[in-house]
């Protein structure tokens, strides 16, 4: 066994056509192709997907937990940004 860890990849799966890719988890792999295979073998064994994205975890730019207040709290009291003031037309189910 090697004592060097392979890089971490994040895995995104599209469960069916028309839906967007969703984060499924992460895997270790030595290169991109291996990451794609490992994602397929780890996360789509039970027919979960029709498309896979993998991306090196180190390539993801993430928001800083220390800045949560500045980042997200200003949106909390802006209720006018929610589309709750519209009347729903009859017969529309998925809105």
């Amino acid at each position, binding site marked *: *066994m*090697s004592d060097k860890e*392979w890089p971490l990849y994040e895995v995104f799966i599209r469960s069916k056509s028309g839906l967007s890719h969703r984060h499924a988890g992460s*895997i*270790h*792999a*030595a*290169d991109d*192709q*291996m990451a794609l*295979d*490992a994602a*397929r*073998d*780890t996360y789509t*064994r039970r027919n979960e997907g029709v498309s896979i994205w993998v991306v090196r975890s180190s390539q993801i730019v993430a928001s800083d937990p220390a800045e949560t207040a500045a980042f997200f709290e200003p949106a909390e009291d802006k209720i006018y940004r929610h589309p709750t003031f519209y009347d729903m037309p009859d017969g529309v189910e998925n809105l």
Partner: protein
Amino acid sequence: MNKERALLAYVSRLGDNALVLGQRMIELVAAYPELEEELANANFALDYIGQARMFYTYAGELEGQGRREDDFAFLRDENEFRNLLLLEQPNGHFGDSITKLVLFELFYLAQLGSLARSEDTQLAGIAARAEKEIRYHLRHNTQWLVRLGDGTDESHRRVQDSVNDLWRYTGEMFEADEIDTIVEKAYGGPNLEELRERWLADIDAILINATLDKPEDGWMASGGKAGRHTEHLGYMIAEMQYLQRTHPGATW
């Protein structure tokens, strides 16, 4: 030999190949150094066991004597197994396993592709399903062979040894016997000479990509397709069949 008997022998042989290789891969479950490859190996092993079940079930139907998949797998002796010698060889190290899989799957994929277009619809259906599985295995395993061959000095040296050691078992895949010939003529099965030419071209390209040398053509081992095996199969079967032999009919 009439064509019905040849088809039965052929289908049963396909089952033996899948079962023996699948069992060898199962021996490696929980032995892989990386979780991701561990899962891949277990998935692939189960693909083979699934294929063996389909082939044996169909063989039982063709035979018409009430034998089921388990009877083929667990209640036959070593000399009744007609798998390729390559597949019963011990796992060795990771490079040995990968090399064995690439050498076999390159042949098997072409064999399945041809059988999927054969005139026996049931065999064609099983082959078409298995073909998709093996296409992915081969993609995965070929990448590994290239990674190891074109990797470090040590991985290159060790996987070159694997190729040299296993090469002698590749000739048997393309030796057509009476069963192969009848299935080719009567059911539109594969022509092994054509398969050999394709295989040689494909393996050449893979080895070049992996910076590995193709071994000199030399003596080729054979006999597995006629039930004459290397010493390794008996031990493997003894372990595999232990439970059914000790407790006949046991289920859980």
